């Protein structure tokens, strides 16, 4: 590439790693000028100033050198402590000589979202730093803070695809020894309040609902709103039918459809955000054998028939499992939740009615029958020791159980029910 050592310093950060002792090591490509220890540089993105501690080349191991010149590729350590200070795509220049920032990498749009929570809240800080470090080397993962009643504080992460998410998860486990819970993510809904009392309470007439517990009742609301995106799909024409069906299934409204050339079609659909955050992208890809492409942009909010769906165990609501969902999708989601709960809650000495309800109306229900016989037949000899171990483990488990009404629910039941289905 054309460059001149006489030009002012212009270095592109194309990768970075974090070293515990030396700080952030930025990999740079020099497009102009030169750089050496002691130089004072500025980041175009953060506008922060640093002094260069070390420069060098990668052979592939780090080899410190005296200077790096335009046209060279190497690394730089400049006392950056935070992982966010070395953004991939950033331009570095000398303190006194600002330059036009190089066109950085275009950030790819996340297609698959997941809620990520530590298994235990005590692990929150560990997970936070693990996430920061992993995302330093993988800037295509978007991170937003989130929280759930059942699982505590966590994040909403965006990935380029399901595989990306799985690899990320694996790296978390292998490199940082963190196991996490992945859930379907939440989207921020809004409500336009009509009740004077509530407007006074919140201080405004439009509120953002992040938590199902905050969901205002229908009577107090003039309109519910859900976030939408305008999605653009480009696909070979043979998949049009299936894709249209998929979009309609996701409550999308077609905005445009035109042939780009004799083989490919471009479809524009307005999607509710909550319909595409989990697995839309992968469904699209498998429908079209990978040929369809998807891009989207924020398209504001639209009016939506939203309801709060409660889960009841023997009539008692389980707060952690309440979800905000579109009326059309409530039945299917409710049924699925009830079925999953039936499998994760252990049988007890009485019957358990597992129900999904909207307000007072029950929309789905499963019954978990009571134990009529639960005693081991033979218990002699070696069985005794084994039996004791098993019973003591169960006793331990009981101590950790949550009691909802008279129903005992294991702590991890909610997790198992809220988890995304990783293999569909």
């Amino acid at each position, binding site marked *: 590439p054309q460059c001149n050592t006489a030009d002012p310093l212009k270095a592109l950060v194309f990768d970075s790693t974090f070293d515990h002792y030396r700080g952030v090591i930025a990999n740079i490509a020099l497009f102009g000028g030169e750089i050496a220890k002691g130089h004072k540089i500025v980041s175009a993105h953060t506008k922060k100033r640093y002094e260069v501690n070390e420069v060098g080349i990668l052979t592939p191991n780090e080899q410190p050198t005296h200077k790096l010149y335009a046209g060279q590729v190497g690394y730089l350590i400049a006392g950056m402590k935070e992982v966010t200070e070395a953004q991939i795509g950033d331009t570095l220049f000398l303190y006194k000589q600002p330059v036009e920032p190089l066109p950085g990498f275009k950030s790819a749009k996340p297609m698959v979202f997941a809620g990520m929570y530590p298994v235990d809240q005590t692990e929150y800080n560990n997970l936070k730093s693990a996430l920061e470090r992993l995302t330093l080397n993988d800037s295509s993962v978007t991170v937003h803070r989130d929280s759930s009643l059942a699982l505590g504080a966590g994040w909403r992460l965006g990935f380029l695809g399901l595989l990306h998410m799985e690899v990320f998860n694996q790296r978390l486990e292998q490199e940082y020894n963190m196991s996490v819970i992945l859930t379907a993510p939440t989207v921020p809904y809004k409500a336009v309040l009509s009740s004077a009392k509530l407007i006074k309470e919140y201080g405004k007439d439009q509120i953002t609902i992040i938590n199902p517990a905050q969901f205002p009742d229908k009577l107090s609301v003039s309109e519910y709103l859900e976030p939408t995106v305008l999605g653009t799909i480009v696909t070979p024409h043979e998949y049009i039918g299936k894709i249209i069906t998929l979009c309609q299934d996701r409550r999308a409204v077609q905005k445009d459809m035109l042939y780009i050339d004799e083989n490919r079609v471009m479809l524009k659909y307005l999607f509710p955000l909550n319909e595409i955050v989990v697995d839309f992208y992968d469904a699209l890809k498998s429908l079209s054998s990978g040929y369809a492409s998807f891009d989207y942009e924020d398209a504001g909010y639209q009016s939506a028939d939203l309801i709060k769906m409660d889960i009841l165990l023997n009539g008692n609501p389980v707060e952690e499992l309440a979800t905000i969902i579109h009326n059309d999708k409530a039945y299917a989601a409710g049924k699925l939740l009830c079925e999953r709960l039936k499998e994760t809650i252990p049988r007890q*000495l009485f019957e358990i009615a597992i129900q999904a309800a909207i307000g007072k109306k029950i929309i789905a229900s499963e019954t978990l029958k009571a134990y009529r016989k639960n005693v081991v037949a033979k218990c002699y000899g070696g069985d005794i020791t084994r039996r004791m171990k098993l*019973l003591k483990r169960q*006793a331990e488990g009981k101590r950790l159980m949550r009691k909802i009404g008279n129903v005992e629910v294991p702590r991890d039941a909610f997790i198992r029910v809220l988890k995304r289905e990783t293999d569909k």
Partner: protein
Amino acid sequence: WPYCRKRCSYCNFNTYVVPAVDEAAVRACLVREAQTLLRLGQVHSVTSVFFGGGTPSLASPGTVGAVLEAVAGAAHLPAGAEVTLEANPSSTCTSRLAGFRAAGVNRVSIGVQSLDDAELRMLGREHTAAEARKAVEAARGLFPGRTSIDLLFGLPGQSWDAWAQRLEAALGLCDDHISLYQLTLERGTALAAQVRRGALPTPPQDLLADMYQTARTVLLAAGFRHYEVSNFARKGALSTHNLSYWRADQYIGVGPGAHGRFVPRGEGGCSREARVQTLEPVAWMREVQSQGHGTRSRAVLSPMEQLEELLTLGLRTDEGITHERWGHFSPQLSLQAVFGAPGEARALQQQGWLVLDSGGLRCTWAGLAVLDSLLPDLLCQLQR
């Protein structure tokens, strides 16, 4: 006696099928280990002896006699002490049984399991229903009032009606003691594999519950006392030996894979230990020959662990745990103190599963069937 002629399809016991058994060697080791362990426990008097396995009726009466003699020599074996032998219908002709009786056996438990030939084939048993009947009759002739039969229910594909018929047939044949076990599909057995791959159906939970309830009701009507989860006796013919397990008395296990619970006073021990003898017969024999006994593992049971065992096993009986028995293991904290205060036990009493009164702590008729759902709660309360 850890040997069988073949392994039944549902069996996961520590038993071995070998072409030939050096009976003399095994006998010598059983004798030696019995003597060693009796001395180790400083046992003064033996209340009962039980020959299990494997198929004990495959051993010769001579071996049984030798072991009993060794026991009588190392401790006091009263004349009326219960001496039980487990027997398979295919090795219990009258003459053989008479031989066992002469050797000192005074009670027999016959592994009938089922009185239907098709079911017996599915279970991989060596005998037919007719052979089982003959065996029981022979046993009753020689051990009247002291013959027990083992029965299984809940077989894959067994209907409620079929079970009702089996029960009736068994009642017509049995003596005064029945051990009734729900078939458990243990991992690693041929029968479990068949069910897992779908060759045989899994018995539905509700049907098993019905079968058990039916059996309880029918046997009760026939004069039996349901004295333990799986054991029924009439005219007082309870199994003394098995009761000692559930009352957490002391017992010594002799032979490969045998289990014991006793205090090894002979070497200065003062705590009840859980002991297991080496599983594999050849290895076991070597150890017995060199050290006098083949104890593979021994673990001291803490007072808490002993109480937990007492609770878990004692509640399996209709008598439950008496205040005296509890006091033996927990002199400071009475049953009332632990379970009488508001808590899990009180709740279970109110729901009708448990009873705590002057007689002790025990399950109600309904509670016995769901004991394993009650135990974790009670263990929690005990731990606190």
